[in-house]
């Protein structure tokens, strides 16, 4: 992949940091452990070094590159169905060489259209924005930023990736089977997803979907347990929870959400497998389909929705919170200012995490659920706007009177805040049960979540890649290509999703192959064409990033040790950290991670591992006490 793995020089005793005070016991333990590691990892076979690696940095790269491949596929699928929506009368004959029987007489097969939207959603939500985002950066940054040699269990971490890989293979293979992939929407509501008679995609395609998702959940749990354990147990000397960078807080809470909610999806998937294959009736009742009355009685499709959204709602926070954490970090670093309201930022993350478990039924206001429950969930849902608002205000306050460097990562972070505002605000409409009667399942919903969790999380992902690329590969990405990539994507996202709100307010239903059959939905043909053009251009623009990424791995400008003048621990490692991250002892931590532009200091950043005794001129009164 690259030459990032320099020969590990893990001999203990070489201190990167002027050791203040006595070396604590855990560090010594790590030292010995390292010595032991040296024998194991020195002359590794490439297979163990690059493929079945247990090094968190290598696993992070595996997640990232797999996620990128999935993102290209997910984007490609969306381009296909945008072609259909923009030009419902147009001929698709030219796609026949690629899609084969799914093009019938020059037309896209309507059932395949549903398969496209289903797979686009599944791929983007789970494989790109959960595994690709959280899998990459939780793995990469947690040990580096808390000051650990690796994850608590490198082996489990490796398994986490390979379960994800297996899950990817199963999901990918479902695209090529005779009856097509799962087509019941990414939310796979039964009975549609349970009955192959209802739609061909609910045959083997759905079976593979469920198997793939079960493997995916195993991967998530293995990863999540590791992240939580590492953050709790393996922080370096002095790294209290109140000195953790916001990235780590975000990854930590994300992992907890995943551990608590993914098993519920697993149970839902398991019950659905039972209904599909073993004749049970958890979700099926009173069904007459394909000329036959089924024997299933007493099940409830609404029960599935409760189970699904008990994961599904925390899932959107699993997607967005890592992005929030990374954006906080990048904004502070590049505004050269402490993040405003560090404790409020942690508090709002915790608030969002707690609330995310009690809002799921706002996806179900009009599904026949008791209206009283609707009232309760409306109340809880709209409350979540408060911590989200706090985060936005704090990001704005962080920019205020800063000294902003527009790196590509910074641009994407600012873009993230903008998209998060735009998409988040419409959540206030959708969270209101009364207004949701009209807006439910329209393009207003599609526009809302694509801005607030889709595009925002993607922007967080881009910010993360641009910012930590030097740490991953020891080289810099090309900044100018980064600028072009940003402005194209930023404008593209707004041009796609702002007009989509209009289409939604007009009541256009989502997951429609065409609206031509309805007079009520006839007025926006031009707008849909416009959206399609913007979406396809924005998708093609992503290849600038792909090019930049792979080009820079090999030919990018060589990075210095701390290219962004950042305060966090990962920048105290060598340019190309080997297995074990620090060649010598792990640095101890003395201060919070946001001492940027501190009055009285000569430099505009003081890394976390610099003790107060060395910064007499800039210490605040209480810090001075600690120093003495």
């Amino acid at each position, binding site marked *: 992949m690259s030459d990032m793995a320099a020969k590990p020089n893990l001999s203990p005793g070489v201190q990167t940091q002027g050791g203040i005070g006595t070396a604590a016991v855990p560090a010594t333990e790590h030292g010995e452990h390292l010595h032991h590691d040296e024998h194991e990892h020195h002359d590794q076979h490439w297979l163990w070094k690059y493929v079945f690696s247990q090094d968190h940095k290598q696993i992070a790269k595996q997640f990232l590159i797999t996620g990128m491949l999935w993102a290209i596929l997910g984007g490609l699928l969306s381009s296909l169905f945008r072609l259909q929506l923009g030009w419902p009368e147009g001929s698709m004959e030219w796609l026949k060489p690629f899609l084969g029987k799914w093009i019938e007489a020059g037309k896209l097969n309507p059932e395949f259209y*549903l398969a496209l939207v289903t797979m686009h959603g599944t791929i983007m939500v789970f494989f790109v924005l959960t595994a690709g985002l959280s899998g990459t950066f939780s793995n990469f940054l947690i040990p580096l930023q808390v000051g650990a040699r690796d994850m608590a269990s490198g082996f489990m971490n490796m398994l986490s990736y390979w379960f994800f890989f297996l899950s990817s293979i199963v999901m990918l293979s479902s695209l090529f089977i005779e009856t097509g992939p799962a087509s019941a929407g990414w939310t796979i*509501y039964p009975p*549609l997803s349970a009955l192959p008679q*209802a*739609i061909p995609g609910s045959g083997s395609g759905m079976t593979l979907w469920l198997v793939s998702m079960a493997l995916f959940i195993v991967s998530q749990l293995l990863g999540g347990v590791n992240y939580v354990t590492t953050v709790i147990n393996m922080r370096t000397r002095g790294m209290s929870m109140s000195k953790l960078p916001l990235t780590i807080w975000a990854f930590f809470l994300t992992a907890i959400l995943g551990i608590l909610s993914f098993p519920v999806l697993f149970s839902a998937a398991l019950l659905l497998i039972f209904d599909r294959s073993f004749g049970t009736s958890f979700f*099926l009742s*009173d*069904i*007459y*389909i394909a000329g036959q009355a089924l024997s299933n*009685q007493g099940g409830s499709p609404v029960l599935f929705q409760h189970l699904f959204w008990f994961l599904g709602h925390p899932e959107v926070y699993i997607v967005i919170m890592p992005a929030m954490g990374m954006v906080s970090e990048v904004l502070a670093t590049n505004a050269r*200012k402490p993040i*405003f*309201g*560090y404790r*409020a930022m942690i508090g709002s993350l915790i608030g969002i995490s707690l609330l995310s478990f009690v809002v799921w039924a706002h996806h179900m206001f*009009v599904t*026949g659920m008791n*209206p009283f429950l*609707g*009232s309760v969930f*409306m*109340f809880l849902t709209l*409350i979540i*706007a*408060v911590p989200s*608002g706090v985060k936005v205000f704090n990001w*704005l306050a962080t*920019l*205020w*009177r*800063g*000294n*902003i460097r*527009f790196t590509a990562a910074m641009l994407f972070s600012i873009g993230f805040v903008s998209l998060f505002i735009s998409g988040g*605000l419409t959540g206030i*409409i959708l969270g*209101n*049960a*009364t*207004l949701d*009667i*009209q807006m*439910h399942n329209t393009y207003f919903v599609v526009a809302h979540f694509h801005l607030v969790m889709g595009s925002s999380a993607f922007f967080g992902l881009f910010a993360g890649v641009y910012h930590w690329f030097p740490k991953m590969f020891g080289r810099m990405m*090309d900044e100018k*290509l980064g*600028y072009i990539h940003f*402005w194209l994507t930023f404008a593209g996202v707004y041009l796609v999703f*702002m*007009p989509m709100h*209009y289409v939604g*307010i007009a*009541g256009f239903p989502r*997951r429609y*192959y065409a609206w031509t059959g*309805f*007079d*009520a939905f006839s007025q*926006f043909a031009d707008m849909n064409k416009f959206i399609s053009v913007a979406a396809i251009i924005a998708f093609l623009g992503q290849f600038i990033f792909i090019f930049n990424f792979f080009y820079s791995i090999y030919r990018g400008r060589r990075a210095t040790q701390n290219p962004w003048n950042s305060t966090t621990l990962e920048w105290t490692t060598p340019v190309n950290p080997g297995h074990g991250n620090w060649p010598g002892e792990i640095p101890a931590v003395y201060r919070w991670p*946001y001492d940027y532009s501190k009055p009285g200091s000569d430099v505009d950043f003081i890394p976390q591992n610099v003790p107060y005794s060395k910064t007499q001129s800039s210490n605040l009164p209480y810090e001075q006490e600690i120093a003495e």
Partner: protein
Amino acid sequence: MTALTILLVLVLLLVVFAMLFRLQIFTSIFSGTFTRDIGMSNSVNAILMLVFLVFGGAWFAYSFVENFNKMNPPIASIHGHEMERMFWITMAVIGVAFAITQSLLFVYSYKYQYKEGRRAYFFSHNNKIEVIWTVIPAIVMAALIFAGWKAWTRITGPAPKDSVVVELMGKQFNWLVRYPGRDMKLGVVNYRMIDAVNEFGFDLSDKSALDDFTTNEIHVPKGVPVLIKIRSRDVLHAVYMPHFRVQMYAVPGMPTRFWFTPTMTTDEMRAKLGNPGFNYELACNQICGGSHFAMKATVIVDEPDDYQNWYAAQESFAKKNPEVLAALKQKPASMVSQATTPAETKEVAPAPLAASY
């Protein structure tokens, strides 16, 4: 041949881009800007931030106004008007928040761009303003929640006693419509009795089912509460009538309902819109299979008198399909009783029009 030419042009374009990219790198190495951290591009990006705010904001405002009429389906129900008001009030509130926060974001980005020798202001927290911007959104949200909650309980509350009852049954891929007939009672239906003729699954051993009738179009009277009872016989569907601001899922095994009061007849709406072809439409709004996008029904709002006449002219299902009734009589009694569904479906439906007309 054309395909080959296009391919060749694309490849050449890519090569040109790659060359330009290399050239750009070489020039920046030559001019010494390659390794500089902060150069011209910083102020270019800062200016672009401002440009994006101004032009993006202007484009958004323009396109919003331009499309405003297209994005408002005409309203034809009492609660629809209430929802519409609430929608635009909420839009105004979030519009203000949107304008303020987005402006600050881009203006700050421009204003506080990197300047040689300037130092950022070390400002880590301020409890007072943090409390303010926690409390103010909380108050605004509380107001919105309260308004939404009041409207929600009203809209989803029990239907008035004098409501007209229509039953819709979703199936792949059309809507079946049933009215209770002269006795104003919807009879028992049973999914096991469904076949090509008896699509609704009428159980004609139930007396109140005998006068129920089915239609292709949905007729409802203007100015009278209409209670729609909703069923599905296969997968999930959703009854979505954008003009009435009505939406409710059709769930197999679990009847649902929604009531509303139409305020304009189809003819009045045609006149108002100047569109003689106008019809109220019912769309399926929950993914249900390949022809989901074509699962449509027409709703006709009549003057109450016309509705009465139409209603009286309908012929019951049993009368139209005597063979279903005949077949039933041949079946052993045990099968019939076994197939009876819970009494819940036997609900008493009030007169199609209250005496006040």
